[in-house]
């Protein structure tokens, strides 16, 4: 474990260094514009997996947390003029609060009710945003993002680097949860909630903690979005494709370990970015839906599981 952690830390340092250096070497800002979306989905998939993968509680409402983060960051930045890091931090806090609230209302009963309630969260939040004129209502609001600081050559590159930092922090958080006592407890919850409860695992508290962390990461993933698009409106902020991808990416990559959602997100988001440029976005959703069905039906362990099964067979 120690050696793995050192390797992981080294990986983080290399990736962050690349995040700061690449904008100066690659001139075309379009790559960073696209890369932002891929990193956003890495964060979303990682955040979703903390609850959905480790604890086995499916959250259909990732778009609700994401949208809450988008709107809080946009509101705080345009009206109060808070600096970007504070916007991201407050979005994460709001996501955690939302997660705990929802978990507290529904987690005591059964996973299936939790899943249904999360579907509702998106609609309730979207309805609320629609009705608040300070947030622009249905017509949305324009956001003029911060000017990129000296270490970044342009706005696209700046957003990319900020998103990279959020993504790296999320993956590190997910990895910490996975290898610490929290992950052990959540795996016990996932295997058998009753048995875990009987052997003294504080299941409700663990699930609430997972809800909070997952919600925080999902909302943080949304917080730089207003500066990326310069414009927020309810339909895109609470878009269904976010909720769908949040489930599909970890399921495709594998839900047991932090690497699964990262792999799934890198793969699926890149394919989608190519697809939206070349094919229509409706076919894009159809494709994701079919891939999702195929993986649930035929490869419930995801790509990570397929790989390890192959390795396991090759070794002996």
């Amino acid at each position, binding site marked *: 474990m120690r050696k793995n952690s050192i390797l992981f830390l080294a990986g983080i340092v290399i990736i962050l260094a690349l995040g700061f250096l690449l904008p100066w070497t690659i001139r075309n800002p379009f790559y960073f514009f696209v890369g932002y979306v891929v990193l956003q989905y890495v964060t979303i998939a990682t955040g979703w997996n903390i609850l959905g993968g480790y604890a*086995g*509680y*499916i959250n*259909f409402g990732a778009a609700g947390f994401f949208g809450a983060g988008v709107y809080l960051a946009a509101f705080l930045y345009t009206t109060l003029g808070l600096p970007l890091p504070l916007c991201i931090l407050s979005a994460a806090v709001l996501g955690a609060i939302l997660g705990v609230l929802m978990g507290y*209302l*529904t987690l*005591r*009963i*059964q*996973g*299936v*009710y939790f*899943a*249904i*309630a999360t*579907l*509702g*969260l998106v*609609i*309730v939040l979207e*309805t*609320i945003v*629609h*009705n608040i004129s300070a947030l622009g209502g249905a017509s949305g609001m324009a956001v003029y993002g911060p000017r990129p600081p000296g270490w970044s050559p342009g706005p696209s590159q700046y957003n990319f680097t900020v998103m990279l930092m959020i993504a790296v922090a999320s993956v590190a958080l997910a990895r910490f949860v996975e290898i610490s006592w929290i992950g052990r407890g959540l795996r016990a919850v996932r295997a058998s909630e009753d048995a875990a409860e009987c052997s003294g695992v504080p299941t409700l508290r663990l699930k609430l903690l997972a809800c909070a962390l997952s919600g925080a990461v999902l909302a943080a993933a949304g917080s730089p979005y207003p500066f990326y698009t310069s414009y927020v409106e309810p339909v895109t902020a609470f878009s*269904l494709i976010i909720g*769908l991808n949040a*489930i*599909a990416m970890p*399921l495709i990559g594998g839900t047991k370990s932090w690497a699964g959602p990262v792999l799934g997100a890198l793969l699926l988001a890149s394919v989608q970015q190519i697809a939206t440029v070349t094919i229509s976005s*409706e*076919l894009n*959703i*159809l494709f*994701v*839906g*079919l891939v*999702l*069905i195929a993986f*649930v*039906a*035929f490869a*419930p362990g995801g790509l990570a599981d397929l790989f390890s099964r192959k390795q396991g067979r090759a070794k002996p």
Partner: protein
Amino acid sequence: MLSIDILLNAVVTGILLGSVYASLALGLGITFGILHIPNIAHPTLVIAGAFFVYTFGQWGFDPIFAALIGLAPFYILGVALYIFYSRVFERRGGANVLQSLTLFFGLSLVIEILLALSFGSELKSVSVSYIGSSLKLGLLTIPYRLLIPALLGPVMIAAVWLYLSRTNSGTAIRAVAHEERALSIAGLNPASVKQHAFGIATATAVVAGAALIMIGPVEPFAGRFQIGRVFAIVVLAGMGSIPGSLAIAIIIGVAEALVASYLNPSWAPGVAFAILLLGLAFRPQGLFGAAR
């Protein structure tokens, strides 16, 4: 001073809307309430039913008649869905609720997109002679486009309820969720009973779809806004209680109509979920169900 006629009209509209919601939720009451299969694709199947009725409406068929034609193909569709579902999960021995939720989520997306690709994503409606005029009773004004679908709901619900409670095959459906082994000891095949139940549940979707498209125009993604309502109805009615679901649906309908006329129509979509969340928090066994 709140005028009495606004209140009266809101309450009556709410009751009628609630009756339509009950027919939307009926299929889910069978699949989720009785069989415990979390079929979140059901609202999308209702929209597919509405588009079926729309297609026949284009050829000059009455919506209710078109719905009756649709019963058989939707029954077969439901049986096919169940066979796919059980094949997928049988190999793993027992279905994981969350995996089946994900499966149906993917399925509903695929159905939505296929509808959008074949019909376009704009609103579609049907036109019939009796739609458009209204029934006036003193202070009340009830449009026929709402009254007729609302009468359709209780008729279908009563028929399904009588079937489930009075006939042998209906009793078998209620029994299969409780004790599958006892059913096979009694000489019945649980798989075929479940297929039959899923078929009936899906067949109700086309009638509900007819009701929905008579009330107002429908677009391929409209099912999403019904998910909250139908699950709220089934869960709060107490899983599988069909008369209870009619009562809950009417409560939700009236609450939405009151919110729409006194606050703002744009708040109405959140009402069902708010009721569901409060219900789950304070009375998880449902208002009409026994504790589990």
